[in-house]
């Protein structure tokens, strides 16, 4: 009964999305106020119905209703309740419904928080979002119905959730990642609405900015959680694998980051317009393409859902309509838009342009690395694969100039900047960075001319520069105590996000260079030494979990005789899925992780044990978190909540006229 109600709710949501896609857009062209006013209730109704459908699916999972095919293939009665809940989005069908819920959630949020937008603009944005919702709800309902029943014959026990997905990280990772992915739909809708109207100005950029920030923030957190999950769950201590699906989430992130910076230029200086709009379209297009790659089976990946060409074809046609249509509209409309603002060669505009160039080069590298095997094969040149070394090397070369520029960016003024006033502070920053990096590595006796040193230097340069710049700004605003409060939230956000990037760079470089590992065979009572730590295998015993069995090991860690920790590593066996899983034991400190994974039992009795010491690996995720936090703080900036009085509807296009004079173009 409940699954049918869920399906019914989703069907109603489809009807509302159809109305939302048609009525307000129609209203915007004939200046019909009543049609435009319908957008908001339609959007909210659509969200309520989709969320209700998701709720019904979760209910079916919680009650182990195995008549539903989706439940039978992805859950079992022995699964703990919280994993039953997450199993609801562990399959292709369920995750598609989650995707729809998130998309309608964003649409409803736009409807609720767009009071400051002119009615015409609001109607167009919601109409475009309605079109996208229509495509995805129809896909969920007709091509991958999560509520499909297997009556009259149904299994008494489900096939259980893939053990890899039975982890805390998997509870929060997909919702956050999807919030980020589909969040770019909002920015996309803003861009399309503006393209339809044909007007771009700094007001448009100021409307689009908070939504882009929010989507970017969620995507950042989603990617970081995914990386953290891989580290804990896969048992080989890796945190990023350049897997096609990881790349599919990384590309929108890179373009989204470029978009954030380009939007800043468009908002403050009214230039880079055509560029910004293209990025807004690209960010969402790459999200869509990611969805296509993951769900169509075009690329092979550990993450891929079961493949089905008809689903792939549907998504490809949808992709063609949405992306092709918007790029065509872009080509028709954008060539008439010209930017007036002038700027010198050494100015913040040019530095942000540099930021965009590097971020897009990075996107291109990821794109080519991911798609090249496909191109190569479809051109009849045979199968090849592109591995980690390619990506690592390319990102190594890109990160150096990018970090150097980033250290300078915030210091440089809009329009033009002369060099002399910057020489002193930048020299100080460089000296501080040198002292910090060399000092730390010397103290820990790890100083060598290698990647770790380079990463430390670059990270310290970016970090010190961000701190120094904020310090100087506070001085200008009347000292630290008053300046602290008077500095805009968006400035704080930027500084924190930049520090986050610095932390990330240091983490990656240190982990890549200085990690050590060993594979040892241990009997109970044996010790293994690695990186100054002694690991002693105390005990191995049978494990009995709710839906798994296996073995657990207790390992005592000492450093120069001093006890540090007792680690608990597990090797689980999930009988329903017949899968063996490693639950690594991690002892985490800011400066290093101790990572122990229990391997096979070998006759003896002894066990193979894998031990890693990974310096600074926490910094990678800490950096990501700081970046997301920076996004959150910037989102709280007062100016995004300032309301604009909507102009009367009689002259539709007039409502899009610039209102930028209200906002002084400062900082």
């Amino acid at each position, binding site marked *: 009964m409940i699954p049918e109600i869920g399906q019914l709710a989703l069907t109603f949501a489809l009807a509302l999305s159809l109305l939302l896609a048609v009525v307000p857009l129609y209203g915007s062209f004939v200046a019909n106020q009543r049609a435009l006013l319908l957008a908001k209730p339609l959007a909210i109704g659509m969200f309520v119905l989709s969320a209700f459908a998701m709720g019904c699916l979760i209910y079916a999972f919680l009650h182990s209703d195995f008549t539903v095919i989706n439940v039978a293939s992805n859950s079992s009665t022995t699964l703990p309740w919280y994993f039953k809940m997450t199993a609801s989005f562990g399959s292709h069908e369920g995750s598609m419904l989650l995707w729809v819920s998130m998309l309608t959630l964003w649409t409803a949020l736009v409807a609720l928080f767009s009071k400051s937008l002119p009615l015409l603009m609001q109607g167009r944005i919601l109409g475009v979002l309605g079109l996208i919702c229509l495509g995805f709800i129809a896909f969920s309902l007709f091509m991958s119905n999560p509520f499909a029943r297997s009556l009259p014959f149904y299994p008494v026990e489900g096939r259980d959730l893939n053990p890899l997905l039975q982890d805390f990280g998997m509870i929060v990772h997909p919702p956050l990642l999807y919030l980020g992915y589909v969040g770019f739909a909002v920015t996309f809708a803003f861009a399309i609405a503006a393209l339809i109207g044909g007007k771009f100005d700094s007001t448009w950029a100021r409307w689009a900015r908070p939504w882009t920030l929010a989507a970017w923030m969620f995507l950042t957190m989603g990617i970081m959680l995914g990386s953290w999950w891989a580290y804990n769950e896969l048992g080989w201590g890796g945190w990023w694998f350049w897997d096609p699906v990881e790349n599919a989430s990384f590309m929108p992130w890179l373009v989204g980051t470029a978009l954030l910076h380009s939007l800043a230029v468009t908002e403050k200086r009214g230039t880079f317009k*055509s560029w910004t709009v*293209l990025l807004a*379209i*690209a960010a969402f*297009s790459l999200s869509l393409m990611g969805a*296509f790659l993951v769900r*169509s*089976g*075009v*690329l*092979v990946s550990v993450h891929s859902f079961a493949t089905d*060409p008809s689903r*792939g*074809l549907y998504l*490809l046609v949808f*992709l*063609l309509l949405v*992306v*092709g249509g918007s*790029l*065509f509209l*872009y*080509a*028709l409309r*954008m*060539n008439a838009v010209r930017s007036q603002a002038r700027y010198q060669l050494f100015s913040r505009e040019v530095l942000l342009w540099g930021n965009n160039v590097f971020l897009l080069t990075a996107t291109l590298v990821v794109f080519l690395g991911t*798609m090249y095997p*496909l*191109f190569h*094969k*479809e051109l*009849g*040149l*045979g*199968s090849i694969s592109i591995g980690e070394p390619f990506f690592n090397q390319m990102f190594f070369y890109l990160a150096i100039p990018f970090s150097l520029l980033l250290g300078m960016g915030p210091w440089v003024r809009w329009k033009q900047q002369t060099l002399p006033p910057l020489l002193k502070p930048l020299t100080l920053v460089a000296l501080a960075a040198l002292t910090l990096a060399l000092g730390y590595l010397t103290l820990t006796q790890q100083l060598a001319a290698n990647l770790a040193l380079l990463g430390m230097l670059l990270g310290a340069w970016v970090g010190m520069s961000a701190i120094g710049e904020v310090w100087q700004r506070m001085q200008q605003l009347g000292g630290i105590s008053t300046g602290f409060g008077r500095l805009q939230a968006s400035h704080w956000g930027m500084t924190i996000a930049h520090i986050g990037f610095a932390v990330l760079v240091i983490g990656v470089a240190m982990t890549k260079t200085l990690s050590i590992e060993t*594979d040892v*065979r241990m009997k109970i009572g044996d010790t293994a030494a690695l990186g100054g730590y002694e690991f002693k295998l105390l005990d191995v015993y049978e494990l009995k979990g709710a839906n798994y069995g296996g073995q657990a090991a207790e390992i005592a860690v000492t450093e120069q005789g001093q006890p540090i920790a007792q680690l608990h590593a597990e090797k689980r066996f999930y009988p329903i899925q017949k899968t063996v899983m490693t639950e690594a034991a991690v002892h985490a400190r800011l400066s290093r992780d101790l990572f122990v994974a229990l391997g*096979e039992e*070998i*006759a*003896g009795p002894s066990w*193979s044990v894998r031990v890693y010491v990974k310096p600074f690996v926490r910094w990678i995720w800490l950096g990501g978190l700081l970046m997301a936090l920076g996004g959150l703080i910037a989102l709280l900036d007062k100016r995004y909540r300032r309301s604009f009085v909507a102009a009367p509807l009689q002259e539709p296009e007039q409502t899009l006229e610039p209102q930028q004079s209200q906002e002084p173009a400062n900082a």
Partner: protein
Amino acid sequence: MRKLLFFIPFALFIGLSMFLFSGLFSDPRQHGSALVQRQLPQFQLPDLMQPEKRWTADELKGEPYFLNVWGTWCPTCNAELAFLTQLRQQGVRIVGLYYVQPLDAAFGETFDLKALQQDVQQKLAEQGDPYQFNLLDEHRTLIFDLGVSGAPETFLVDADGVIRAHHVGDINPQNWSALAEAYQQLVRK
């Protein structure tokens, strides 16, 4: 001119879509192997059941055959044994290339031929024996030269020892027709 500039993203996207479209209908598991149309690499490997007998590439020539990479430890290989046995009964020549799982001497794992022979005999008795004979590639040299990425994989080799096709994954009644056609052509020659 400036107008055309703005059509570049659209044009690029359309080009990309064509690739995606054709990618949709090709199985990413089907390899166009770099070795197809080349000679089978030289080797000298013992027979799994009679290790004193050593096979070379030249001895296998004279009649087209399938070289099937497999192992008793590989569930998919076990699943295809029954179908391959049917094929053998129809007169198709299949030579096995036994894939020994990596052993780690550090963990005291040593190669035990007796146990392996027993294991293989038992498996073939249960599931059916499609093989004319099995090559034992203990150090995985031929497997490496062939660029095998996993088991099961199958190579179609013609009478002159030239590789004509490379199939990744199991052979089953659904995908057999393409290979059958290629095999029939070689037999007719």
